[in-house]
């Protein structure tokens, strides 16, 4: 009797625990409040009886036109737009212009977003880098093509897009062609160079011509000339800092001479090339000599603050740095004419080398149930008055050509950087990426072997062979993931 009672009680309690556990594991449904998402609902004139969007709002853009639709009761979930956190001004803007639309910012990294994709609860809008994620996620069927939405839109005109939009195009065979899978918000030619004129003068260097394309070798000479040590042997000045990672730097160097690491049909990877070898040798030399900021020698930051303190001669990081960061630096804001922007270097001077290596934009998740509303949000966030406002502030290039002239040009510094930036855009190249290999995969592989070569634990030849093998494996795996033969 006793044992029977114990068994019965155990079974009942265990069943209760399991039921409770399965209840705990149930995923949130789309549109429900999630404890994991930071909700920033805008005030809106939403009707209490209105239900969240489903098939009733999922109309083809041709039949109704996005601008005449109401989105009462619809909340789009946005991933990656960290500039919209606690942004009361944007909330008000959406409330006034969003046709009843509300939005919430989703805090997640890529791993968490993968889980949300698996449960069908991913964010409607993904604000990620066009360079690293645009074609890659398009190839994996995660992005919605936007051509029809753009065609029906009063805010965007495809003919008005700058060439940076090519990073979001992929036709299954080539990056830069085919449907558009995102719209860039802000972008820069990330391999242009900022020069500290004061450091250059102190180092006995001539002030460069902002319309000339110099070679990477010339840049290296300048960087080494800027290097200084104090009496105790500690380095006190560096030649260059950068926000670009190895993959970006190497890709920029390779593409600057019209070459690519990948075959035109994206089926092959070319690692054993003079350009890759030159890039590895170049940065190894820059790091070892202390000319470039690295873990071998660093002022304590990536170079941004040290540049304003005249401890770094150059920064490789694009137009955004000037009005977006340097102009707010206490050590720089009152002497902006000490800084200038020049063109991206090239391995040789036969071709232009200016390229966008980031370009944060917005794309719609293919599984979203609020695509119309999501595109409306993109119109508000990436276009219209909000895009004009950002262009006037000069935090980066706008994606729409007609807004470029709104970039700040009042002070001497702003005029110089505007001219250099505009010159760069006219000579812009689109970096050739391969959507079947993730940008992180490229970076991890390059990093792994670069440091082996840097510290002379591996010869360049052995590193090339190992990288070729690794990239070929990644390419094959990526094509399998994307369902490509």
């Amino acid at each position: 009797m006793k044992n029977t009672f114990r068994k019965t009680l155990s079974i009942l309690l265990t069943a209760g625990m399991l039921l409770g556990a399965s209840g705990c594991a149930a995923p949130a449904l789309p549109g429900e409040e999630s404890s994991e998402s930071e909700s920033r609902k805008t005030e809106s004139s939403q009707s209490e009886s209105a239900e969240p969007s489903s098939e009733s709002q999922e109309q083809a853009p041709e039949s109704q036109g996005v601008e005449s639709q109401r989105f009462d009761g619809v909340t789009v979930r946005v991933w990656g737009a960290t500039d919209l956190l606690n942004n009361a001004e944007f909330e008000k803007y959406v409330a006034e212009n969003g046709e009843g639309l509300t939005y919430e910012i989703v805090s997640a990294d890529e791993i968490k977003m993968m889980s949300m994709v698996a449960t069908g609860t991913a964010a409607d809008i993904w604000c990620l880098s066009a360079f690293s994620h645009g074609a890659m996620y398009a190839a994996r069927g995660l992005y919605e093509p936007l051509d029809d939405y753009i065609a029906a839109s009063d805010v965007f005109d495809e003919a008005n897009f700058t060439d940076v939009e090519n990073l979001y195009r992929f036709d299954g065979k080539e990056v830069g062609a085919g449907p558009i899978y995102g719209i860039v918000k802000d972008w820069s030619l990330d391999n242009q160079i900022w020069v500290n004129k004061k450091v250059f003068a102190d180092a006995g260097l001539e002030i460069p011509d902002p319309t000339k394309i110099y070679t990477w070798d010339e840049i290296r000479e300048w960087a080494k000339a800027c290097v200084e040590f104090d009496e105790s042997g500690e380095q006190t000045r560096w030649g260059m800092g950068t926000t670009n990672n190895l993959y970006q730097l190497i890709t920029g160097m390779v593409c600057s001479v019209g070459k690519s690491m990948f075959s035109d049909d994206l089926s092959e990877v070319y690692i054993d090339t003079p350009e890759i070898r030159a890039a590895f040798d170049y940065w190894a030399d820059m790091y070892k000599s202390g000319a470039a900021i690295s873990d071998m020698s660093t002022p304590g930051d990536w170079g941004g603050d040290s540049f304003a303190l005249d401890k770094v001669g150059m920064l490789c990081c694009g137009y955004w740095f000037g009005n977006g960061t340097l102009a707010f630096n206490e050590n720089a804001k009152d002497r902006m004419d000490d800084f200038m922007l020049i063109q991206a270097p090239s391995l040789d001077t036969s071709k232009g080398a200016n390229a966008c290596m980031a370009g944060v934009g917005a794309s719609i998740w293919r599984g979203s149930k609020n695509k119309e509303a999501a595109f409306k949000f993109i119109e508000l966030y990436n276009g219209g008055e909000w895009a004009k406002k950002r262009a006037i502030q000069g935090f980066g290039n706008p994606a729409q050509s007609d807004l470029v002239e709104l970039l700040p040009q009042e002070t001497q510094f702003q005029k110089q950087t505007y001219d250099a930036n505009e010159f760069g855009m006219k000579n812009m190249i689109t970096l050739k990426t391969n959507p079947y290999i993730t940008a992180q995969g490229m970076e991890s592989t390059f990093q792994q072997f670069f440091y082996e070569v840097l510290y002379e634990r591996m010869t360049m030849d052995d590193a090339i062979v190992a990288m070729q093998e690794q990239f070929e494996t990644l390419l094959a795996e990526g094509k399998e993931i994307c369902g490509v033969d």
Partner: protein
Amino acid sequence: MAEKRFWNAKRREIALFYVLVAPFVILFIATKLVPFVNGLYLSLTNYTGYNYDRVEFVGVNNYQRVFTDAQAMSSLGRTFLIGCITVPLGLIVGLGCALLLNKARKGLGVFRTIIYMPSIIPTVAAGLMWRIIFNANEGLLNKFLGIFGINPVNWLGYDHILAALVIMMTWGSTGGLLLNLAALQGIPNELYEAAALDGAGGWKKFTKITLPMISPILFFNLVMGIIGGFQLYAQPVLLAPGSNGVLNLPLKPTYTYMVHAYQQILGYSRFGYGLAMMWVLVFIINILTVIVTKTQKYWVFYSD
């Protein structure tokens, strides 16, 4: 005869037990067991992060790959070697600090707090702090060595990164201090008095009384150290070059097995393979734990 009540004291006690453990069991199932089993399932598939709706079963392919992947095997060996240095060092430092703090002296509470502090500082904060200390250019450690005329060392470079990692981990190994201290204070004083009467000196007392009496705690710390040693991930990544956060790639001397597993998942989207690597590690840790447990009879003294 008095009628037996169903809810007698015994049954109430049993019911209370299940009610009290229910929250833990529910949370354990939901947050540990379910992910465990799901991870095991995914390790047998070609899961890449975004193909959950069309994932395919691949059998033991991922597990076979672990043993044919040269980097996985070399990183496993490297992790074992690092553990052979850091685990004993950690035990020695933990025990040494406990011995120092076991003696009654003025300001003992302050010393205990200071010595115990490294183990409660979050790993990431400690890692960032040590990166600054190890900085070749303006780091505190090189400045300190400079006082003695020693040239600056590139602590985060290839040649010295392992030493830097060992220093950082040894500094943070005072976590076992409290347990060691409690064990030391549990040793009856009469044993030391009797030994003193027999003419035993300090070393004899330490080896014949102290060590055997605290050997169960040393055994526990050893097992926990082995588990922690094989799971080494955060510290090498924090000392690695670059600013890519969790995807910083440590230099080869500190490229551990878990770093390789995380790279497979986060860097290369090889979720199935990365999970298989982790399950292999679970198996290896279990084997080692069993082996160490079997050695108990030779060196662990239980008073009962």
